[in-house]
């Protein structure tokens, strides 16, 4: 209640208007739809009380930093530089909105144009928007964008191909987004090494789009994907979902024929935050520019020919094109993308390389330590992994993870939650902050579990 500057001055204002009561202002609401009882909610609180309750409630959660943790599944237990939070919460950034008035929004517009440039550099494609809601909606809208571009000439009309290893939550988002256009979603198979069956992928030639992930949901870096564009041809969009951090080490999809690159921006800029707000990356070639979703900033000039920035290509968007818009997205995740830009600019080219090496090193070290345990197997022993890999343990992996949890280690994701066929598997996630001591803790609880099952 302390947020109302005119509290207690209502009558002063009403009398200027010649009114007696605030209720007069609501007189256009017909009786039949008037609410008569007060809201059955608790009394207002002060800032101090809210902070106390927040500390209590959020303090009762167990956070990832409080113990060794190997839960990733596409999110990163990152370290966000202090500068990011301090500058992104400057009121001029924090409390602005979509920069419709370019003349008083040059700061955010330029920051987003720089962001577009950093994403473009990262994935090596010329165009980036200023963010989607998350990696999944980015993937889904990349697919609908590709359909709009390719369906006319497609031999396999209204058809797209998606890797069968796309995790179920992302698959579900994709299905919700494409079902309205009557799209036929086909799955692409993988071989026994967890690699895409690249020869079989030719079946997608002539369809509208192919969506694959690099690394895939098992954390596997799949060399074969670099030949995929050749198999599916120029008239089928190659859409690649990336682990953005991996691109510090791994060849960007723009180098091997990707038409659209999507991914989760979260590792740059913000903590895992229980899954949101995070932001989706969306980058593409010129061919898709008029069909892509989301806001885009362009350079321009003012009436004095001075360099300036403005939102551009708006005729794709819902506020102009309405039901023919390329997407319904309006509010997006710009503030989080701004935090991402700050983080990326602090890292610089050397920092992103080092960051990727740190994640790769942790992944490899954890993998080596775990396979040295008798009874633990890798699901795919011959793969190169980034951030994640899959182990098989004796017994049911959900029980195993829950046992290790009671021993104080968050051991990863029991893969049976995603695919019932994988109920003995655990998806182990590592990051730049995984330490040797975290790995020792994991090894010892895995050993303990095995003793538990064996006995």
């Amino acid at each position, binding site marked *: 209640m302390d947020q*109302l500057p005119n509290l207690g001055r209502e009558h002063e204002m009403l009398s*200027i*208007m010649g009114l007696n009561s605030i209720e007069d*202002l609501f007189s256009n609401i017909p009786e*039949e739809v008037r*609410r008569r009882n007060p809201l059955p909610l608790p009394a*207002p609180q002060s800032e101090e009380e809210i*902070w106390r309750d927040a500390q209590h*409630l959020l303090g*009762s959660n167990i956070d990832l930093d409080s113990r060794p943790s190997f*839960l990733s599944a596409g999110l990163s237990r990152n370290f966000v530089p202090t*500068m990011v939070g301090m*500058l992104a*919460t400057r*009121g001029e950034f*924090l*409390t602005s*909105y*979509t920069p419709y*008035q370019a*003349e008083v*929004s040059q*700061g*955010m517009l330029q*920051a987003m144009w720089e962001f577009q*440039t950093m994403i473009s550099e990262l994935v*090596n494609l010329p165009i980036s928007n*200023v963010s989607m809601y*998350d990696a*999944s909606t980015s993937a889904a809208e990349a697919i*609908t964008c590709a359909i709009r571009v390719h369906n006319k000439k497609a031999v396999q009309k209204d058809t797209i191909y998606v890797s069968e290893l796309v995790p179920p*939550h*992302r698959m579900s988002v994709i299905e*919700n987004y494409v079902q309205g256009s009557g799209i036929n979603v086909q799955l692409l198979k993988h071989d026994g090494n967890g690699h895409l069956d690249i020869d079989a992928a030719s079946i997608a030639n002539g369809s509208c789009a192919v969506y694959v992930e690099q690394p895939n949901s098992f954390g596997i870096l799949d060399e074969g994907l670099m030949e995929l564009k050749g198999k599916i041809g120029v008239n089928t969009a190659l859409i690649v979902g990336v682990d953005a951090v991996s691109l510090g080490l791994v*060849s960007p999809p723009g180098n091997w024929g990707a038409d659209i690159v999507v991914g989760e921006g979260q590792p740059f800029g913000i903590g895992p935050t*229980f899954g*949101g707000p995070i932001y989706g990356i969306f980058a593409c070639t010129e061919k898709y520019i008029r069909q892509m979703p989301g806001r885009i900033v*362009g*350079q*321009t000039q003012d009436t004095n020919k001075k360099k300036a920035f*403005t939102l551009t290509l708006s005729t794709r968007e*819902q*506020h102009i*094109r309405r*039901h*023919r818009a390329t997407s*319904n997205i*309006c*509010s*997006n995740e710009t*503030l989080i993308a701004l935090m991402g830009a700050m983080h990326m*600019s*602090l*890292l610089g*080219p*050397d920092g*992103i390389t080092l960051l990727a090496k*740190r994640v790769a090193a942790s992944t490899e070290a954890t993998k080596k330590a775990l396979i040295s345990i008798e009874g633990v197997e890798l699901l795919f022993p011959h793969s*190169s992994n980034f951030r994640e890999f899959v182990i098989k343990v004796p017994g049911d992996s959900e029980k195993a993870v829950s046992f290790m949890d009671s021993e104080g280690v968050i051991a990863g994701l029991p893969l049976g939650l995603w695919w019932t066929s994988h109920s003995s598997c655990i998806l182990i996630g590592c990051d730049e902050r995984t330490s*040797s001591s975290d790995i020792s803790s994991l090894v010892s609880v895995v050993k303990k579990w095995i003793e538990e099952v064996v006995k």
Partner: protein
Amino acid sequence: MSDIFSFNGAQNAGWAQPEPILPDSEVLAIIPSSMLRASPPAWPRASEPELVRHYTWLSRRNFGIDTGFYPLGSCTMKHNPRVNERIVNLPGIDRMHPLQPEHQIQGILSIFYEMQEMLAICSGMDQVTLQPVAGAQGEFTAMRCIQEFHRERGDGHRNKVIVPDSAHGTNPASASMCGYEIIEIPSGEDGRIDLDALQSVVGDDTAAMMITNPSTLGVFEPDIARASEIVHSAGGQMYYDGANFNAIIGKTDPGLMGFDAVHYNLHKTFSQPHGGGGPGSGPIGVKKHLSKYLPSPLASRREITEHDGEGVGDGYWYSWISPENTIGKVQQWHGNAGAVVRCWAFYRRYGRELERMSEHAVLNANYLRFKIMNPDKEVLSKVHAMPSDGAPTDFVMHEFTLSMIDMKDKVGVTGKDIAKRLLDYGVMAPTLYFPMIVPECLMIEPTETESKEVLDKFADDFLNVLTEDPEIIKGAPYTTDVSRVDEVWAARNLILRHPGNNSESN
């Protein structure tokens, strides 16, 4: 001009990190050599001191609520309480993973549950999901639920969604993404819903109607219950665009008006900061018959037992449940949880007094409209042409629309010119040219967090603009970082990224 790509420090002189836990030779051996990146992305090579200055410089070239009055209609740009930012820095939200087991997330689940319940109460709905991350995604999610509802009843042939011509662009765009055909009905002469027009388009093919109330003109639709009846009797569902929820909390609710589903723009009504355009949070609420289709999962609770863990001390154990016929996921996790937590903190500030918030939003809007429309004689004599109401009404709700058409006709000054000139007075311009049915429209929403003095000053400044030399107005703005920007040039040249420092290539 500060150009981030002009920073060019020496290699490895930037922000430091710990070394990898394996030596370089081992790390590089992990990745097949054909897959190794040849050269890193050409990001700036900047130090922290340089970047802090760069971003501070940028921030000073940006206008937010903290800078000044932000009467951006339909966007509810209210003050963002700062304790909310402090709260989301707690590790119990910042350092949480959405797939952690239930016993590790009791606190956040209890906040989710409280928010679901609070929003259901305020809107007269039965069940709320917090998963959609913006208003538009809420619209899409609700339309998907409605679509499944019809399909299950053997009504899958219902393929049309009705929207008024005053609807926000996301409404038709969201319905269209579900595969619906859009029927736009014209508003009546008075800007209100035309029941005859509605009656003439409903039928066996009607899936739903999407509408906001108060309408985008800022006036309450008195015939809303009748509209609901018409749509329902044709077998359609009623969808409430809750972007204007700030006007009605505690006074009426979409349930009473006959709606089946609603989205909330938490980033507007409940003050999640969305600098530059987001993040938002767009939960939806639905009536019982739609609740089994909601996205998964929902927060739920039961009485705590001794087998459960500690809980949060309120006697309940919280868990996730999945609705019986769920449409699955629209966001990959549980929505914008950080936004939900901020909005929880915002809501707690009002509790059962949320009604006061709406009262003050409506009071401020009416007061500002009164001040603008009733200038003293001296001012009136100097004004080239007065604005006219976007829709005739005695009172408005939390916002109002003004048509500047007389200014245009009389002195050739457009709504856009006036919006740009207002920037010179140190305020953000109102929403321009929306809704599209009002010619030369300015849409003004002061929100409840502005003082009487700010409103008085804005009214004076606004009227003053209308007295100025038309040529001055048309050339505005003058005091901003750049003068009027050329949008056509941007679209024609499409320079969408920095050319880079050294070369054009990567």
